[in-house]
């Protein structure tokens, strides 16, 4: 199983400038994918989640094109080959 995590431009410097993190192995859900990400690139995890392991409020996560808010949150199933896309919300000035 392979899943790609796609980073917004603001987080790529924490991944040596690369846009994509490939996660090999069974992750099962979005939460599982982020646990794998936490091991691979902890600095990215720390930007996406608070120290309480809560998704930061202005961060949006999509599985494919679907916002996980509407598909089960962090329990959203993740299929082989899918992209998990991290994007900041369009808030702020």
């Amino acid at each position, binding site marked *: 199983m392979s899943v790609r995590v796609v980073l917004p431009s603001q987080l790529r410097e*924490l991944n040596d400038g690369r846009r994509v993190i490939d996660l090999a192995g069974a992750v099962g859900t979005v939460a599982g994918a982020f646990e794998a990400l936490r091991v691979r690139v902890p*600095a990215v995890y*720390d*930007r996406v989640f608070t*120290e309480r392991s809560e998704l*930061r409020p202005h961060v949006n996560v999509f599985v494919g094109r679907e916002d996980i808010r509407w598909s089960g949150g962090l329990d959203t199933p993740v299929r082989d080959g899918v992209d998990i896309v991290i994007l*900041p919300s369009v808030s702020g*000035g």
Partner: protein
Amino acid sequence: MPQTTTGVPADSGDVVLMVGTTKGAFLFHSGSDRASWKTDGPHFPGEEVYAMALDRRGAGPVLWAAAGNPFWGCTLRRSDDFGATWSGKDERPVKFPEESGLSLSRIWQIRPGRDSEPDHILLGVEPACLFESRDGGDSFEAVPGFLGHEHRERWTPGAGGLCLHTILPDPGDPARTVVALSTGGVYRSDDGGETWRPRNQGVRAEFLPDKHPEFGQCVHKVVHHPSRPGRLFLQNHWGLYRSDDWGDSWQDIANGVPSDFGFAMAMHAHDPDTVFIVPLEADTFRCTPEAKLRVYRTRDAGDSWEPLTEGLPQEDAYETVLRDALDTDQATGCGVYFGTRSGRLYGSRDGGDHWTAIHEGLPPVVCVKAALVP
């Protein structure tokens, strides 16, 4: 794209201004005469920088900045070469313990500790808490006595958030430290941080039914002079106060100011009787009164205040200066500096008698720190 930053090649005797804005940090550098300034920035473009500090205690000065944003959180960055390079990009040394149920929103204050404890660094953060490092900033821990304070549930956020914004260690007594938070008020520890007692007797809380509670005041800033540390000056959310007993009691010193509402307050570097403020009209109209940009100065510890206007706009100046956007340097004559939410940076090299615009067109300024390079 933002311009490339190179840092400021400061030498001993130079003055460095650290200006934090909602869109990055800027460094300004001048010789000891402070006649002209070179600009470098933005550092951390797009990120808000609410706290900066130059730690002058060690073998070489260390520049600290708290950079972050509402999307990705906040972290601490360090430079040993005046901003040419910054470490800490990948690190998150400031974290609440998971069992606290809290998560870091913003770092509001970076305070190098006493000269006698060169590896001690204190941070004031949101949600209101005090963190400290005992290893020169490599790691930080929440101070347990403050993290678990019995009043925590009753502290409430002001418009800027529930922030601990003032940290005043007693330079002569390692056991004593004063902090202030909004809203919550002034707290003091006399036992090295194990316990913290509210020290707000005499300070009003206009926005509460009980105007003089034990705690819950919306204190905006507290300053003191290291040569007379037990005398504190306080800018409140309505109210100007002085304490001569480390906060045990407070006296109203709003004598001759157009408003006792404001955020910013700074101590003269060399004179323990001289303090600077920038009054604002009201909490419902947080702009300079009468559209005049005036710094007010007392030279008699608050018995009287005088407006300082020469070089500052006195018409159509609807400006706001926030709590950490006013500071002084340690150079001869005492430089005074402040930044506005409209992005203007002003400076005086004669203790406030004359002012010049150092820079205009910055993003909204939230932090100005000045330091003489040792």
